[in-house]
């Protein structure tokens, strides 16, 4: 196992398409790092450069102490799980897993041992004689996992390996992959566009957009301390609620107001605006941090648009000028659409964003 360092890595396709811009990343040993972002953000390209499947336009890549920037894939000691599994259809499962081992001239019985061990970890040890065409999608994916593990690489690369599985399988495979990672103690880079996947698996998440890194942090960091509107919106289901508000300094303190809202900020929250010059900002609050209160205590009142019972809780949606705000309320009493709801916020969780830079004002 080794560390991975990407230094000022840029990837340019043709003359004008810059897929990855000045990418800097350090992955610690045994860390499970997730590259997260929407399609086209450059996450897969970044990973493919680590694998050696894409040439680096400028920049350097280091695995451990070695610089690997110019090396072909086979000399980097990485392994990869591809999105479409890429198991070789003309070889048995056994041969698929043994492929790399044979190329390293490892003695036959050793190969046999490794293959069987790896296959049992991935729970496909009884399928070793089969051809991929005889396996289901989930089984093929396990073959890909087993193949990747068998080579005992410095770095594990996983390119959206769960995207092609059905929902239930995806969730159970998450746990399995994570367990394999923990057991093998492998440094892993995992690419996905699914934020809940990233949140549940990652030690750290790198959020990317349009080839650039937006935020790096633990799931906790990116969730509670989102650095930009993009992150706050991307992470979390349902995502952060946003409201345009004006800052009004009044005698009893700082208020955040808009046509529907009047919120008196706690003094420590108002501290965040010390160096902020504008008089308006975008307020971000997550649904679970909006609480239902009595009318007298409310910062915000509106008619309930929809209430979605989820068993353990309900998601209550209100509409303010074409902006839908969702909050999470206890399962009982059931809120009836059309009735008034009165809401207030857990202020310590509020995030403030500059409307022009979209970056967070609180640190």
């Amino acid at each position, binding site marked *: 196992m080794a560390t991975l360092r990407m230094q000022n890595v840029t990837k*340019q396709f043709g003359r004008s398409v*810059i897929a990855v811009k000045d990418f800097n990343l350090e992955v610690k040993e045994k860390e499970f790092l997730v590259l997260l972002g929407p399609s086209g953000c450059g996450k897969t390209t970044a990973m493919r450069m680590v694998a050696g499947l894409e040439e680096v336009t400028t920049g350097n890549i280091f695995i451990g102490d070695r610089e690997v920037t110019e090396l072909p894939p086979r000399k980097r000691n990485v392994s990869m799980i591809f999105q479409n599994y890429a198991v070789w259809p003309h070889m048995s499962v056994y041969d698929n897993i043994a492929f790399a081992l044979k190329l390293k001239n490892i003695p036959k019985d050793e190969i046999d041992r490794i293959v069987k061990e790896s296959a049992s970890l991935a729970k496909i040890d009884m399928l070793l004689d089969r051809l991929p065409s005889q396996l289901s999608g989930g089984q093929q994916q396990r073959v890909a996992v087993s193949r990747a593990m068998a080579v005992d690489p410095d770095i594990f690369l996983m390119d959206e390996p769960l995207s092609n599985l059905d929902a239930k399988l995806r969730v159970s495979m998450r746990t399995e992959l994570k367990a394999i990672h923990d057991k093998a103690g492998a440094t892993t880079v995992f690419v996905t566009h699914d934020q809940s996947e990233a949140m549940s698996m990652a030690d750290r998440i790198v959020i990317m957009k349009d080839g650039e890194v937006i935020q790096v942090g633990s799931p906790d960091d990116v969730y509670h301390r989102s650095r930009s509107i993009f992150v706050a919106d991307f992470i979390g289901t349902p995502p952060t609620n946003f409201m345009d508000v004006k800052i009004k300094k009044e005698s009893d303190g700082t208020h955040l107001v808009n046509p529907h809202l009047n919120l008196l900020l706690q003094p420590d929250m108002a501290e965040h605006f010390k160096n902020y010059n504008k008089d308006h900002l975008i307020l971000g609050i997550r649904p679970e941090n909006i609480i239902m209160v009595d009318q007298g205590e409310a910062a915000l009142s509106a008619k309930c648009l929809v209430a979605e019972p989820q068993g353990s809780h309900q998601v209550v949606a209100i509409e303010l000028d074409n902006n839908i705000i969702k909050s999470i309320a206890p399962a009982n009493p059931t809120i009836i659409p059309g009735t008034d709801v009165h809401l207030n916020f857990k202020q310590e969780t509020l995030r403030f964003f500059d409307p022009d830079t979209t970056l967070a004002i609180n640190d």
Partner: protein
Amino acid sequence: MAKRIKKPIKLSKVISKTIFYMLIVTLAIAIILPAFFLVSLSFLSTREAYQYPLPLLPSMSTEYSLTHGNRGYLISVYDKFEEEYQTVLDTNELEKITVYMKNQLGTPYTIAEIEEQIAILESGAEDPVYFNARKNIFLNYISFFQISRDAVPALLRSFQIAGLTILVSLTIGGMAGYAFARYIFPGRDALKFSVLFVRMFPGVAIALPMVIILANMGFYDKPVGLVLVYSVGSIALTIWITASIFMGIPESLEEAAQVFGATKFQTFLRVTFPLALPGLAAAAMYAFLGAWNETVSAIILTQFNPTFPVVVYQALLGAVGNVNLAAAGGLVMAVPSLIFTFIIRRYIQQMWGGVTI
């Protein structure tokens, strides 16, 4: 952020890329060159065709000089290769001159136009008189069709036969293709095997016995006879193509039509057929190409009513010197082939890429 990325250049890459492109260009030239000459030759005049070395590019016009000669008028032609005027005719029969200019050099000139030039000569204004005559580059093609008396009827016959073959193949073959695509029935594998086998079977092997069979039916040396023989292989190919086309159309579309009240036939007409049309067009062109290009069977099964490839074949057999006429004939044969092959090139690639036999 400004686009200040400068991609580093590696010498080894530049070298390998250069070699690569050199290879590509060489290949392209090797492929085009013979074809180029075929085209170029078809536009050469007879005189040019007898020259050695052959001109690389056909001339578009010829320079003549006219002066007095022993027997009347001396006509000389400017030879680009030797870079001098060479005497070709010494006569006072104007008819001879125009015939020569047309047949040997492809530059048709009327008697009136010759008289014009003679008038200039006689007036004393110039001696010799130099004039330029434009070439009709399609003269070879016209000559080909005139000299081989069979050529035009043969051409028409070829089109006719190809068209009928398309009809027969698409109907019979298309029906069977649909059956293969949509149904599983006993004997399906056996039939599939047979169809494949027929497709690979040599066409010439059927042609010989068919001589007698067709003669008995009264179809020997008739287009219908050829259609019957061509269709044997053509149907097999069409079945294979149409089967894969129909398999590519989801059954759910047909089922939806039936749910909404259509009969099977209406479903086929309104839903399946329109969707299959591009593929069927490709199958039709395939059938056309097969029938159009077929030579051996045509030679065997026709006598006085040959198809076009047979005419070209016979012309080529006898064409020792007239390379230009032969080239013209060959090119006429090639043009529909080239056109249709290019139109369906994606289908060709799809067929080979996706489906094994």
